[in-house]
C-alpha cells in the first residue's frame, strides 16, 4: 500500500519568506525583460504572414533569406521547424520597413513570388499559411485582453459569492502571481505568444484557482471544526491534509502536459510547455502565495470566519514545534 504524505506535518507557512523570494527572483527579471524588449507575439497579434514550407533545396535558411531579400521582403524571420528541411518564414507587418505599411495580401503574394524565384517553383511545398491583416490583429489583441480581464472578473465574482472576500482576494493574488510567473517563463524561453498560448494561460488561471479552492475549502471547513486553532495552524493543517491530492492531481496533469509537449508535435508545443509550467506554478502558489496572503489579510482585517485566529494572532512567532498542526481529537458528530 502506497500512502504518500498520509500524515504529512510540514510547516509550509513558515517558509513563506523564502517562497516570496523565489517568486520575486523568477518574476521580476522576466517582467523587466518583457517591459524592456517585449514578448515574441505571433502574427495573429502583430499582423503579417507566416508560411511553413517543406523544401527540397539544401541551402538552408541562408538560401531562403537571400531569396526573400532579393524578392523585396526584407527582415523576415526564418526558422527551421521540426524536421531539418521544414522552415517557418514569418514576415510581420510591423517589421516591414518602408513608407506605407504593405497590406497583408501584398506581403503574402511577395513572399510566394520571392520563394518561387529563389528556390524554384517546384522545389518547395507550402505546408501551412497563416496571414492576418492589421485590423484583425488588433481585434485579436483586444479579444485576448478582454478574455483575460473577464476571466479575472468572473472568477472574482464567483469567489466573492462562494467564499468570504478575504479568500477571494488571496486567491486572485495567487492567480495574478501565476500569470506573471508564466509570462516571465514565456519570456525566458522566448516562446511565441499566440492565441493558443493565451488560452493556455487562461487555463492555468482556472487550474490555479481550482487548486487554491481545494485548499481554501479545507481551510473553511477546518476553521469551523477547530475553533480554538489559530489561522497559521489551520492553514498548515489544511495544506498538509490536501497534500496527497495536490501531488497526485498536479502530478497526473503535469505529466499529461509534458507528454503533450514531447509527443504531440511542434504546433502544440508552446501551449504544452506553458501549461506544464503553469501547473507547477499554480500548485506552488496555492500553498505558498494564496495561504500566506490569506494569513496576512486576516491579520490586517480580521474576519468573522477566523474567530479563534483573531484571538491567537495570525503570526506564530514561536514555532511551537509543529504543535499547531496536530489536530485535536475529532468531536463526535
Amino acid at each position, binding site marked *: *500500500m*502506497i*500512502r504518500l504524505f498520509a500524515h504529512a506535518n510540514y510547516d509550509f507557512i513558515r517558509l513563506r519568506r523564502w517562497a516570496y523570494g523565489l517568486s520575486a527572483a523568477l518574476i521580476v527579471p522576466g517582467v523587466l525583460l518583457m517591459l524592456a524588449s517585449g514578448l515574441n507575439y505571433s502574427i495573429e497579434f502583430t499582423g503579417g504572414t507566416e508560411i511553413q514550407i517543406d523544401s527540397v533545396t539544401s541551402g538552408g535558411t541562408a538560401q531562403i533569406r537571400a531569396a526573400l531579400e532579393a524578392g523585396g521582403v526584407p527582415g523576415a524571420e526564418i526558422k527551421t521547424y521540426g524536421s531539418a528541411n521544414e522552415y517557418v518564414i514569418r514576415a510581420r507587418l510591423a517589421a516591414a520597413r518602408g513608407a506605407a505599411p504593405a*497590406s*497583408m495580401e501584398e506581403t503574402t503574394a511577395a513572399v510566394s513570388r520571392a520563394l518561387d524565384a529563389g528556390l524554384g517553383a517546384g522545389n518547395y511545398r*507550402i*505546408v*501551412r*499559411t*497563416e*496571414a492576418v*491583416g492589421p*485590423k*484583425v490583429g488588433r481585434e485579436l489583441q483586444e*479579444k*485576448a485582453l*478582454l*478574455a483575460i480581464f*473577464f*476571466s479575472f472578473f*468572473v*472568477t472574482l465574482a*464567483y*469567489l466573492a459569492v462562494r467564499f468570504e472576500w478575504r479568500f477571494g482576494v488571496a486567491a486572485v493574488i495567487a492567480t495574478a502571481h501565476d500569470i506573471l510567473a508564466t509570462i516571465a517563463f514565456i519570456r525566458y524561453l522566448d516562446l511565441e505568444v499566440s*492565441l*493558443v498560448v*493565451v*488560452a493556455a494561460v*487562461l*487555463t492555468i488561471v*482556472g*487550474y490555479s*484557482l*481550482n487548486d487554491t*479552492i*481545494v485548499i481554501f475549502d*479545507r481551510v473553511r*471547513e477546518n476553521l469551523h471544526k477547530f475553533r480554538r486553532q489559530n489561522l497559521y495552524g489551520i492553514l498548515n493543517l489544511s495544506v498538509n491534509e*490536501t497534500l496527497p*491530492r495536490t501531488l*497526485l*492531481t498536479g*502530478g*497526473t*496533469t*503535469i*505529466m*499529461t*502536459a509534458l*507528454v*503533450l509537449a514531447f*509527443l*504531440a*508535435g511542434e*504546433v*502544440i508545443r508552446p*501551449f*504544452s510547455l506553458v*501549461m506544464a509550467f503553469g501547473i507547477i506554478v499554480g500548485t506552488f502558489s496555492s500553498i505558498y502565495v494564496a495561504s500566506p496572503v490569506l494569513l496576512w489579510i486576516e491579520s490586517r482585517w480580521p474576519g468573522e470566519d477566523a474567530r479563534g485566529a483573531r484571538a491567537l494572532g495570525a503570526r506564530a512567532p514561536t514555532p511551537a514545534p509543529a504543535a499547531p498542526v496536530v489536530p485535536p481529537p*475529532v468531536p463526535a458528530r
Partner: protein
Amino acid sequence: MSTIRGRLIIIGLLILGSIVSLVPRNVTQRVVDQTTGRMKDTTTRRVPINLGLDLQGGIHLALEVDESKGPVPDCADAIQRAERVVRTRIDEFGTTEPVVQIIGRCRLIVELAGEKDPARAKGVIQRTAFLEFRITDMKNLFQNALPQIDAALRKAGVKSQGAAPSAVSQLFGGDTSTAARDSAADANAPGVLSSLLFQGQLAGEFLVPEEQWAVVDSLIQRPDVKQLIPRSLDLRWGAQVESRGARSYRPLYAVESRPIITGEELQKATARRDPVTNQSVVEFTLSRRGGRKFAEETARHIGDYMAILLDGRVQGQPPVIRSQIGTRGQIELGAKPLQEASDLALVLRAGALPAPLTIVEERSIGPSLGADSIRAGVLAGAVAVGLVILIMVGYYRVSGVLAVAALVLYVLFTLGGLAMFGFTLTLPGLAGFALSIGMAVDANVLIFERIREELAHGKSVRLAVDEGFKHAMSAIVDSNITTVLTAFILYIVGTGPVQGFAVTLIIGIAASMLSAVFVTRTLFLIWLQRRPAMTTLSVG
C-alpha cells in the same frame, strides 16, 4: 437496491447515447468526381466527429469589403449580397462541407476543408467577375484630347519619367537607356503621355511598352489628367501582354463609359478549348431580355469594335461587330490553361460580387500536417491515459480500478458529447482533451483522499464512503465551476482553434463530474452491497 438500479439505468442510457452518437454512419457529401470534374454526391462511413481545419487540413478565409479604393456606404448589405454569390461559387467549386458565414456585421468567413490549392480557391472567391461590354472610342475623342493632357502635365512640372524615376520603374531596372532617350526627346517633342502611347490597330487602342506601363498608369491616375479625359470615356488596360518582335506591349483602351450590357444578363457560361486556335474560350449565353438588349445595341454599332471587360480589364482584342449579335458570345483567354477558363465560367455563372473583397485573415493547413497532428495528438493522448491509469491503479488499488472504469466512461462521454452536439475537434481541443484526462482524475482523487481520511478517523467503511463523497463535493463543484467559467469566456472571445479548446474543456469537465461523482459512487454502492461485511476498503 432501487437507487442502484436507477443509477445503473441512467448510466446505461448515457453509455448507450454516447455509443450511438459515435457509431460510424453514412454521411453524404458533395465531392468533385476526379475523372469528369463534375460535382456528385457520395456516401462514406465515418465516425461523426467534426474535425477542425487544423486537423483535416483546409483553408480558412476572412474577407471584408475592400475599402482601399474608396469607402463603401453600406458594408453590411454588400457583404450579404457577396455571401450569396460566394456561396454559389463555392458550391460549384467542389469542396466537401464548405462553410460560408457572415461574422459580425461586415465580415465573411469561408472555410474549405481538405482543399489543397489555396491560391485557386482564393481566386475563385475573390474575383469580382464583373463582366461588361463596351464600345471602344470610335470617334478618337481621347486621341484628340492628348495634346491638352500633355500640356497640362508639362504645366504641372511633370517631366518624362526619366527625370524623376519612380520606385517602380527602378524596380523594372535596365531601362535607363530608354529613359535617357525619352528625356532627350522631351526637349523638342513634347507629350509626356503621348510619347509613351503607340497607336494600336483599332480605334481607341494604344500600346504601351511593358516596362513603362506603371509610369503611364500613374499618369492617367492623376486627378488633373482624369479631368481632361472626355467624360464619356474610360481608360482600361488590357489583361494580356502582347509581344511584337523582341518587345512586349500592354494595350490600353479608351472605351465608352456606358456598357452596352453587363454580366447580370448572363445565363450560362461554359469553358472549352478551341481546337483550331488552341485557345481557352468561355462561351456564354445571355438571358432572353439581355439578348434583346444586346441585339438592339449591336445593331446600332455595326462596324464598331466591342471591348469585353472583366473586372475592369479588357479581355483579348476587341472584336469588330459585323452583324447584330443575339444571345451568344464568347470570351477568348489566349493560351491560359483550360482550368482557368472553367474557373472563369464558374464565377460568371455565379454572378459578380457587389464589391471587391479583400482577405483580412487567412489560414491554410496542408492535409499532411493535419494528419501528423492527429497522429501525434492521439499518441500523446494514449500515452497520457496509460500513465494516468498506472498511477491511479498503483496508488488506489481496487478503488483505482473503479476510477479507471469511470475514466473510460469519461472518455466515452466526452467524445459522445462532441459528436452529439456537433462540436468541432481542433488541435488545441485535442490537447485540452488529453489535459482534461489528467484533471479528470482530480474529482476521484479528492473523493478517495477524503474517504481515506474518514477511515483514518475510525469510521466504518460505509460511513467513510458516504462522508467522503459528501465532503469532497463542495471542493469538486467549486473548482470545476471556475474552470468552466474560464472556458466559457474563451469560447465567447476566442476564434476557431481556441473555441475548439474551450468546448472540449467544458464538455470534458461536465463528463468528468458525471463520471467521477455519479459513476464512481454507483460503483462503490454496488461494491459495498455485494460485501456488506467488508471492514477494510481498498483505497490503497
